[in-house]
C-alpha cells in the first residue's frame, strides 16, 4: 500500500505543478489562518486575517519595533517620527524618497514612487461613503475640513481633487495632518495596517474589485488569492533595502537570540508566504506536526499534549519533551484584549443607575465563577481582567483591582438587601414584585454551550431566571442595537496599543457604536473627554484609574479574561518573536 501511495505521489509531483504543501523549501513560509480573508483593500477590511496580509503588502507611515517591549512606534516610510506642533493638533511627516510600489500594469511599465499625495488619497478613502470603510470610526471628525468634503459628496464618491486643510501634501515628500482637536495618540492610529498607502491609479483601474488587487510598497505582493482556501504572497521586487537592526532586550533571551542571529540580514529573508485557510483544529495541528506548516498556534485540544503545565500555575508552561527534543520552539503571547459580558444599561430590568440595579448587576458578576471558566474552558491559558485596559497597552495599571470576587453567598445577601425577594415559584422577583428574568445573547457552538452552562449555574445560584437568545453574531448585534438584548459577551482587541481604544467603549456618545452597553455616565464622559487632551502619563493614568473605579461601581460590564496563546515553530525557523501588533513574516528566515 505504501508503495502504491508513493508511486501515486511521485506521479502527482511529476504531472502536477509544484506541491503547495510539501516540506518547506528554503525561503518559503507555510502557515495557516483559521478563517479566510475578506479582501486586501486597506480601507475595506477590518478582520485580523485580512489585515495581517494587508500589513505585508502596504506600508503605513509608522510601524512597531519588532523586538521592543513595551511596544515602540518607529518610522516606516518616513525619515523620522513626526513633528507634533500646534499643541498636539498638527502632525508633519517627511516621507523617505526612493520607496516604490510593486509593479502593476496601472503604472504602465514605469517604477512608481511613493509620495505624500498617496497618503492623502489613502486617508481620504477611509471616509468615502461609497467605500463604507469599517475603520472609518477611527478618523471620523478628526481631519480639519474633511466633514465638509464628505457632506458635499452625499452618498456619492468623494472629490479627491479638493484639497482640505486636514490632510495635505506640502510638497512631494511632506505630509501634514491637521486635527480638529488634540489627539496625542493619532500616530498609533496611523500605524495601523488600514492606513497603508494605496496608489490612486491602481484603485481606479481596478474599481470593480479593489479587494482582490492589492498593490503597495510593502515587502510582499499578492501572487494568488483563492478566497477561503489559500493566499500566496511573494517578495515585492521593488521593495526598498531594509536591514534587520532591532535590538534585543537583555531581560528577554528570545529577543536577544533573534537580534543576534538576524542582525544585518536583508528584509525579507522569506521570499514566499503560503497561507492555507484551515478551518478545523485537528488538520492544523497534524499539518504542523507533519511539517506542512512552519509555525502554528497550538489549538486548545492539543494543549495538554504539547505543553507541560505547572499544576499550581497553568501559565507556567514548557514544551512537552517529545517536542522539545525535536527542537520545536514555543512562544507565548498575552493577547492585547479583554473579554467581557455587558448589560444593556437602558433595559428596565438590568439597566439603570439606581442602587438596586447596581446591586443586581454586581450580584450577577459575583456569582460568575470566572476562575473556574479560566481553568476549564480556557484550560488555564488566560488571566482575569481587573482593569478595562489590558497589559501591554498604554494606560494599563497592574495594581488595580475591580474588587468583584466570586462569592455567591454574598451576592445573594446583596440581592436580599436590595429587595429582590424570592417569589412563590422559587425565583427572585424585582423589588416592585414583578417577575425578574434575564435574557443573554449567545452563539450556537459547543464552546458557547460550555459558557452557558457556567452562566446557568451562576443564575441558578442567585435564583434568577435566565434564558438564552441563540443567534449569529450579526443577529445579536442587531438585537443589541435595537435594545432587545439584556446581556451579551464578546471580546475587544486593541486596534492600536493605547488605552483610549478601550476606554472609548464606555463613553456615552459612543452608545450604539463601540459602547455596547449604552453606559452613559456624565462623570465618566467628562473625564474621558479630559483624557483625550492628555498624552500617556501620570495625569491621564489617574483619570483612567478613576474611570475604572466608576466602571467597577456601576457595573455595566462584567470583565472576564485575557487569553494567553501558545505558538509553536519548527527548529528551522529563525528570528521568530511573536508580536501582536505586527506579523513576523518579513523578519524571519527558514534554514536547516
Amino acid at each position, binding site marked *: 500500500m*505504501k508503495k502504491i*501511495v508513493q508511486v*501515486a*505521489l511521485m*506521479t*502527482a*509531483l511529476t*504531472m*502536477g*505543478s*509544484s*506541491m*503547495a*504543501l510539501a516540506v518547506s523549501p528554503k525561503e518559503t513560509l507555510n502557515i495557516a489562518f483559521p478563517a*479566510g480573508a*475578506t*479582501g486586501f483593500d486597506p480601507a*475595506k477590511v*477590518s*478582520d485580523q486575517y485580512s489585515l495581517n496580509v494587508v500589513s505585508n503588502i502596504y506600508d503605513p507611515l509608522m510601524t512597531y519595533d519588532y523586538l521592543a517591549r513595551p511596544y515602540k512606534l518607529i518610522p516606516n516610510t518616513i525619515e523620522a517620527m513626526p513633528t507634533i506642533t500646534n499643541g498636539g493638533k498638527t502632525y508633519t511627516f517627511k516621507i523617505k524618497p526612493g520607496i516604490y510600489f510593486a509593479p502593476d500594469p496601472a503604472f504602465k511599465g514605469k517604477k512608481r514612487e511613493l509620495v505624500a499625495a498617496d497618503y492623502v488619497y489613502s486617508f481620504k478613502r477611509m471616509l468615502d*461613503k*461609497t467605500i*463604507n470603510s*469599517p*475603520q*472609518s*470610526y477611527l478618523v471620523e471628525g478628526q481631519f480639519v475640513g474633511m466633514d465638509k468634503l464628505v457632506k458635499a459628496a452625499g*452618498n456619492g464618491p468623494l472629490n479627491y481633487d479638493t484639497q482640505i486643510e486636514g490632510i495635505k501634501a506640502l510638497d512631494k515628500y511632506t505630509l501634514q495632518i491637521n486635527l480638529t482637536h488634540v489627539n496625542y495618540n493619532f500616530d498609533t492610529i496611523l500605524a495601523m495596517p488600514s492606513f497603508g498607502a494605496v496608489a490612486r491609479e491602481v484603485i481606479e483601474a481596478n474599481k*470593480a*474589485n*479593489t*479587494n*482582490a488587487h492589492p498593490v503597495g510598497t510593502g515587502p510582499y505582493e499578492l501572487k494568488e488569492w*483563492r*478566497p*477561503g*482556501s*489559500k493566499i500566496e504572497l511573494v517578495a515585492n521586487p521593488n521593495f526598498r533595502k531594509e536591514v534587520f537592526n532591532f535590538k534585543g532586550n537583555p531581560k528577554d533571551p528570545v529577543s536577544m537570540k533573534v537580534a543576534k542571529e538576524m542582525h544585518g540580514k536583508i528584509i525579507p529573508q522569506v521570499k514566499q508566504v503560503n497561507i*492555507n*485557510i*484551515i*478551518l*478545523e483544529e*485537528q*488538520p492544523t495541528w*497534524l*499539518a504542523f506536526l*507533519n511539517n*506542512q506548516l512552519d509555525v502554528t498556534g497550538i489549538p486548545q485540544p492539543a494543549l495538554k499534549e504539547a505543553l507541560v503545565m505547572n499544576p499550581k500555575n497553568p501559565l507556567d508552561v514548557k514544551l512537552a519533551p517529545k517536542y522539545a527534543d525535536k527542537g520545536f520552539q514555543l512562544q507565548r503571547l498575552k493577547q492585547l484584549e479583554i473579554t467581557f459580558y455587558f448589560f444593556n444599561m437602558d433595559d428596565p430590568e438590568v439597566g439603570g443607575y439606581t442602587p438596586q440595579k447596581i446591586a443586581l448587576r454586581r450580584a450577577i458578576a459575583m456569582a460568575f465563577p470566572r476562575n473556574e471558566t479560566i481553568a476549564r474552558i480556557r484550560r488555564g491559558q488566560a488571566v482575569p481582567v481587573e482593569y478595562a485596559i489590558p497589559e501591554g497597552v498604554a494606560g494599563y495599571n497592574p495594581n488595580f483591582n475591580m474588587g468583584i470576587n466570586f462569592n455567591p453567598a454574598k451576592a445573594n445577601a446583596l440581592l436580599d438587601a436590595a429587595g429582590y425577594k424570592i417569589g412563590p415559584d422559587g425565583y427572585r422577583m424585582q423589588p416592585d414584585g414583578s417577575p425578574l428574568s434575564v435574557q443573554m445573547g449567545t452563539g450556537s457552538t459547543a464552546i458557547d454551550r460550555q459558557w452557558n452552562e457556567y452562566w446557568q449555574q451562576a443564575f441558578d445560584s442567585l435564583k434568577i431566571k435566565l434564558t438564552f437568545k441563540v443567534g*449569529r*453574531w*450579526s*443577529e445579536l*448585534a*442587531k438585537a443589541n*442595537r435595537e435594545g432587545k438584548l439584556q446581556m451579551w459577551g464578546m471580546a475587544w482587541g486593541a*486596534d492600536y496599543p493605547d488605552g483610549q481604544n478601550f476606554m472609548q467603549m464606555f463613553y456615552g456618545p459612543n452608545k*450604539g*457604536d*463601540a459602547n455596547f452597553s449604552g453606559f452613559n455616565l456624565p462623570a465618566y464622559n467628562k473625564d474621558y473627554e479630559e483624557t483625550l487632551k492628555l498624552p500617556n502619563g501620570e495625569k491621564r493614568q489617574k483619570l483612567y484609574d478613576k474611570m475604572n473605579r466608576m466602571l467597577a461601581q456601576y457595573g455595566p460590564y462584567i470583565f472576564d479574561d485575557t487569553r494567553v496563546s501558545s505558538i509553536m515553530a519548527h527548529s528551522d525557523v529563525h528570528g521568530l518573536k511573536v508580536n501582536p501588533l505586527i506579523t513576523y513574516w518579513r523578519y524571519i528566515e527558514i534554514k536547516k
Partner: protein
Amino acid sequence: MLSYIVRRLWQMIPTLLGVMLLLFTLYTLVGGDPSYILAGKSLSAETIASIRTQLGLDKSLPEQFLIFVKQVLTMNFGTSWSTQQPVSEIIRTRIGPSVMLLLTWQLCSLFFSLLFAASVAYYKGSIYDRAVTIISTVAMSISILVYIIAGQYFLAYKMQWFPVYGWGNGFWQNFLLYIPLPLIIGVAVSVAPDTRFYRSCFIEEMNQDYVRTARAKGLSERKVMLKHVMRNALIPIVTGVMSSLPYMITGSVLMERFFGIPGLGNEILKAVNSSDFPVIKAITIYLVIAIMVFNLLADLLYKWIDPRVKLN
C-alpha cells in the same frame, strides 16, 4: 418523448419561481443583516444605513425581488457582499473541486456497494451475507466525523501515506495526491448504507416469478443476475444515484473543511454565516436547476432501462 421533455422543461419555470419566492421570503425573515458584519467594529446607525443603501437593502421588498428575478434571468448574481468577488467567479473556481471529490466518491461508492450488494444478495443467508450486514450496520452507526478524524490521524499523520491537508494547482496533483484520502473515507462512509439498500433491491427482484422462470428455462446464473435481476433492480438505484448527483454542486462541507478542498460546501456555509445573499441565491438556483434536470434525466433513464415504463 420530445413533447414530454418540452413539457417537463416548461414545468421547471413555475417551480423555479416558487423556489425563488420561498428563498427570498426565508432570507428576508431569518437571513440576518449583513450590514452588521460589514460594519466591522463601527456599528453606528449612519454606517449601518450607508451599507444597507450600498447593498440595496433599503429598497422595498418587491423591488428587491424583481432584482432577484432579473439576476436569475441573466444568470448574473453580481458580487459577493462579504468579499466583493464576482459570484460567477466564486462558483466557477469552487465547482471543480466539489465535483472532482463527489463524482469520484459517488462512482467508487456505487461500484463497491453494487458489488457487495449483488454478492450478498446472491449468497443470502450465508455467513458472508450476515457478516456484511453486521459490518454495514456497525459502520452506519458511526458518525462521518469519526471516520474523518481517525482517517486523517492514522492514514495521514501516523502512516504518512497521504498529506494531512491541502489542495494544489494541477488536476493530476489534486486527483492523485489530495483526493485519495477524503475519497477513501467518503467511500467507507457511504458503502455501508448503500450496500444495505441495494441488497434489499436485489433480493426483492430475486424473489420475483420471472427470475424463477429464467432459472427454469436453464439460463446461467450469470445471465439471470446480470440481465434480469440487475436490470430491474436498477430502477430504485438510478433514483437514488440521480437524486444525489445534483448535490455535487453543494459539495461536502465536512470533507472540505477537514481536507482543505476549496469546494462549494464551505462557500455555502461561509455565505450563510455572513448573510451573503448573492452567493446563497446563486448556489440555490443552480442547485434547483440541477435537481430538476437530473430528475428529468432519471425519468428518461427509467424508460431506457425498462421500455415498459411510460412517460406521460
